[in-house]
């Protein structure tokens, strides 16, 4: 459970960690769009450099990022093989015996690989440098304008926060139930299909029952503390934009515009 790299928050003290979550979320969205602008080799080089600079400032270890990208490697390798076999346009790059590797195959795969890896790095940057709770606050703030068209932004944010708060508790509870049922002879490795189904039920049913009880208790606790969904409430944690946040937005949007212009020029 503790080795889950993708999405995990790394408590470090970096410039990126200190940024307002809204700035980071918006910058991430802009960068994701930028990645999909077909700006050619130079464009991707520029994006990669910018991102590497951000990674440097985030104090995240490269090994950590590589770990986050690992799940993609297999798929990308597979993709490369397929493309080499299928795409036969462009000029011949290398000839091995009777098998020809075409330039289009290589370059198209390369672009896809770069895009995906950059995506992973950017999203990992966001989740690794932003506490889940702050991320929720940022999302709530960004969604706030949509309240006017009926989006229950604050309630959604509340639900996400509570879910996040209970993740460690639920993990512990799952382990406890597994131990309790194992003590009654439940064995997920062996047994016929029917036995395996019973084994899984013996884990899921108690979890659900307990989750409902918990939800009931929580609802009562929230109600007596005066929580009314949809009602006005103040917020303890206030998000505030500083100069550095504006700079981040400026740079990311500037980059996007630059790439669009570059694409048009080309």
């Amino acid at each position: 459970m503790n080795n889950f790299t993708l999405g995990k928050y790394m408590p470090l003290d970096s410039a990126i960690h200190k940024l307002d979550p809204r700035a980071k979320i918006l910058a991430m969205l802009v960068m994701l769009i930028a990645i999909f602008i077909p700006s050619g080799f130079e464009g991707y080089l520029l994006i990669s450099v910018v991102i590497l600079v951000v990674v440097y400032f985030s104090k995240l270890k490269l090994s950590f990022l590589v770990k986050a990208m690992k799940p993609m490697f297999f798929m990308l390798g597979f993709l490369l093989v397929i493309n080499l076999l299928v795409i036969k346009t462009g000029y011949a790059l290398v000839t091995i015996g009777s098998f020809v590797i075409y330039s289009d195959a290589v370059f198209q795969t390369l672009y896809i690989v770069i895009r995906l890896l950059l995506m992973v790095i950017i999203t990992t940057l966001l989740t690794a440098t932003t506490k889940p709770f702050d991320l929720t606050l940022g999302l709530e703030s960004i969604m706030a304008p949509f309240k006017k068209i009926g989006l229950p932004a604050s309630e959604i944010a509340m639900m996400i926060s509570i879910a996040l708060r209970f993740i460690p508790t639920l993990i512990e509870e799952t382990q406890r139930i597994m131990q309790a049922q194992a003590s009654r002879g439940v064995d997920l490795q062996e047994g016929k299909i029917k036995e395996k189904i019973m084994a899984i039920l013996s884990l899921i049913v108690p979890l659900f029952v307990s989750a409902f009880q918990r939800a009931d208790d929580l609802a009562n606790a929230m109600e007596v503390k005066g929580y009314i969904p949809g009602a006005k409430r103040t917020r303890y944690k206030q998000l505030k934009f500083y100069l550095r946040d504006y700079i981040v937005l400026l740079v990311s949007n500037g980059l996007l515009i630059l790439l669009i212009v570059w694409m048009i020029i080309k």
Partner: protein
Amino acid sequence: MKVIDVKNLDFYYDENTHAVDNVSFTIEKGSYTTIIGHNGSGKSTIAKLLLGLLEKNSGEIKINGLELTLENLDQIRSNVGIVFQNPDNQFIGATVRDDIAFGLENRCIEPSLMDGIIEEFSKKVNMYEYLDREPSKLSGGQKQRVAIAGVLAMHPQIIIFDEATSMLDPKGKAEIKQSINNLHLDSDITILSITHDIEEVSKSDNVIVMHEGKVVKTGTPDEILMETKTLVDLKLDTSFAVKTSQMLQAKGLNIATKIDQEGLVAELCQLNLKK
């Protein structure tokens, strides 16, 4: 002054479960009342009814003279706080700080004032050093203390403790019992504590005994704890000191029945000196 006035309260969970049966009682301002009774006797149901979490079938509930209705729930709840049994299932915030802030946010307290309030009340329950701790890293007793801080921060006149120590280890139990005691001694908050702990009962001002949905006895701890036979019949714990006093009396010792150990020891020392 009566802060809680309940008359002929009736509540059914369903047609077969008459959880609260014609219950009436009053609570005086600033008093410390304990409610005892077997599991299922209706104690927690009454707590929920007093906070409007359940809707009564009939009868009257008045808090500070105001009758509890669907319309004034919010107003009533700003005067009555509750600490539930399960430390996890009432801990809403991501950290201690956030949890205490939750109630303040709901009451639209000015954000700039929140830090001061959180500091003040976390200190009151000795959780100031843990303000940025997550609940998964806190003990049951610590979580309950945070719950108490959160309740106190809203300045209620009445606090209900619904078996707040049942799920805690001895250390946690002691911490919370101490907190409740201090609350009673240091403030004029009215306390209603649902408990199984006889020691706590002996320290309260009044006791309400429930059995199968009905109030079967009310009185001072002295009055209630002395009736050992009744308590046994009602499937409740008896006070050790009372049991011992009665045993000593049966063996020929002329001693007054004491409800707590300190009193008993003092009595016995007196008798020993006279000898």
